[in-house]
């Protein structure tokens, strides 16, 4: 039995019926029981069966993380809970929109960095850009951090979506 006090970060995927209140159930579980949510994303992934996939990033001791999964699994509209951190390697991605305003050299430097990060320009004016960036949360952190010195106006991030590597599915 593993029972130590090390805080672990876990990415958990949850397949749920897309019905009214299901997100409130999940969020209420976390707030009611005092668990952390670092990020949470949700969207319907199967239109025919009305299934949504929730990806959440949480942290806690091993005992707490196991408890979170058990509590999620016992919600009635939950089909499956998968701990992507535990179940082998996975891919994690996040999308961000980052607005930068500036002129001259600053503007050129922002574009140069965007190129390095493979960010796309999705809106441009004479004094601003909106970059669209997809990457790991760490890459997005880095990019936003750099832009902060080059006229960052605002950033909007989706939170993490994730999937296990290899042919296996949910």
């Amino acid at each position, binding site marked *: *039995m593993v029972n130590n006090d090390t805080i672990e970060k876990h990415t958990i995927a949850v397949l749920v*019926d897309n019905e009214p209140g299901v997100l409130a159930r999940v969020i*209420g579980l976390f707030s009611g029981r005092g668990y952390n949510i670092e990020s949470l994303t949700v969207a319907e992934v199967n239109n025919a069966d009305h299934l949504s996939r929730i990806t959440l990033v949480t942290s806690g001791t091993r005992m707490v993380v196991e408890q979170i999964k058990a509590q999620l699994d*016992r919600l*009635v509209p*939950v089909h499956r809970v998968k701990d992507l951190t535990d179940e082998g390697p996975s891919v994690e991605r996040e999308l961000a929109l980052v607005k930068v305003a500036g002129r001259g050299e600053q503007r050129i430097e922002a574009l140069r960095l965007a190129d390095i990060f493979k960010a796309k320009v999705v809106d441009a004016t004479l004094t601003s850009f909106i970059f669209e960036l997809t990457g790991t949360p760490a890459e997005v952190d880095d990019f936003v951090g750099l832009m902060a010195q080059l006229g960052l106006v605002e950033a909007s991030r989706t939170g993490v979506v994730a999937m296990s590597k290899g042919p296996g599915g949910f």
Partner: protein
Amino acid sequence: MPEQKLTGAQIVIKALKDQGVDIIFGYPGGAVLPIYDALFQQNDLRHILVRHEQAAVHAAEGYARSTGKVGVVLVTSGPGATNAVTGLLDALCDSIPIVCLCGQVPTHLIGNDAFQEADTTGITRPCTKHNYLVKDVNNLARTLHEAFYVARSGRPGPVVVDLPKDVQFADGTYVPPVEVKHKTYRPQVKPDIARIEEAVELIAQAKRPIFYTGGGVVNSGPIAAKLLTQFVKMTGFPITSTLMGLGAYPASEPHWLGMLGMHGTYEANLAMYHCDVMINIGARFDDRVTGKLSEFAPGSKKIHIDIDPSSINKNVAVDVPIVGDCAHALEDMIRIWKARQKRADQGALADWWNQIRKWQARNCLNYSRTESVIKPQYALERLRESLRGKDFYIATEVGQHQMWAAQFLPFEAPNRWLTSGGLGTMGYGLPAAIGAQIAHPEAICVDVAGEASILMNIQELGTAVQFRAPVKVFILNNQYMGMVRQWQELLHGSRYSQSYSEALPDFVKLAESWHCAGLRATKVGEVDDVIAEMLSINDRPVVVDIAVDPKENCFPMIPGGKAHNHILLGPEDNVSEATPEDGMVLV
């Protein structure tokens, strides 16, 4: 089957009948009038009109707990639903199957702050196992059947179905409850055999074993209780139980150590502390039971059988987790125990029992007997004697009297003991006793009460009278909120802040005003007569006011934040010295 058009209200009635419901506890109001109208036009479902919606849920809990069936509640929107919330959470904490139908404002008014509108599904989400808002009459029948399935399956619990008034009027199609294959909710009832084998090997090697059983055995059904009794006899191990599990193992059997936990017996708690193998069946390592977690049964290997995977490794890390229904797990264990011809280590077990006998010899439930004042324990001992061999159900309110009832009243069978364990809801007992009495008209149903708790749902005497439920309300009247007073005395320097009930009613006159019988005992010599008279009255409810010692405290007691071996046996043990500062913050 030909398609059948019914109104939503008729669908509700038909679905309830098809689910085998015969009794509903409820209270009418604007948003459920169509259902009450449909109820009026049939004779199969009996409606018990309560006086407050909270009591409707508690009565349904008493009905459910004493029959093993799902309890059904019907209340109106807004205040009807919010009044029911305490009862719903009570049922969630104690895993009682309830289906609660709530009226709701018509769908086009939802979200408009309409008259008697409440966000019922929002409010009850954390207080129920699951809830539904039915917006389309054609989903109504299926949703109701699903609600019953969810309420009674796995770890049972309360389910709310919120019914907008226009849906009750609309015409729709009825579907019968064909074997529900729920899309997602299919709890595991059959345990993993490899785990059972592991458990059997561990049990066979035990030197100082103990069974620690809980409400899960009762919920699993009478077969689970039978199998438990069989397995305890086969192994010869001692057994203790939580408050919720009382009755699953007969208290008259020699292996029984009494209840464990904060007010459990000395022998049960010390056996837990010193055991080397703990077999937890259907209990959840609640804080009332474990005391200080870091010193909980420190040298033990733990087996935990629970139907709810989230109960396993929640508070206490266990060595052999077994997810499944208690009856199935016990059946498998007994089979493998026999097949492998296992036998407990007799030498070690004899030593263990010798030690336990020494603890038992402390006679931890002893109290100072006096002739000048009625001790609450004495009143319960006399009640115990007069109930011996009879068909009885005991409900309780919450507080000292509840703990004394758990200590002094023996239960020989499951489903006989109705108490609010998890939530600790004062006001639970009278409606629960009424629910049990409605289900078992010939049985003796007693609510062991305190004078403070009983006032929280005293209005239900009206329900008991109207529906000829001759419940016995046995008030241990000490004029204080006894458990609050006890903690204030022991931990807050005897500063009795707001725990003394001034202006108590005359319970005899109060009973008589409702056409109930009212009896009183103020002297030790009157107790037997009053109990005999109480038991002789069967045509109306009886309220018995027993004036007990106002200063009596409930022992044994494990102070907050302490381990089992720090149990205090009586007033001679100083509690405030025994309670660490971090224990003071615990409830």
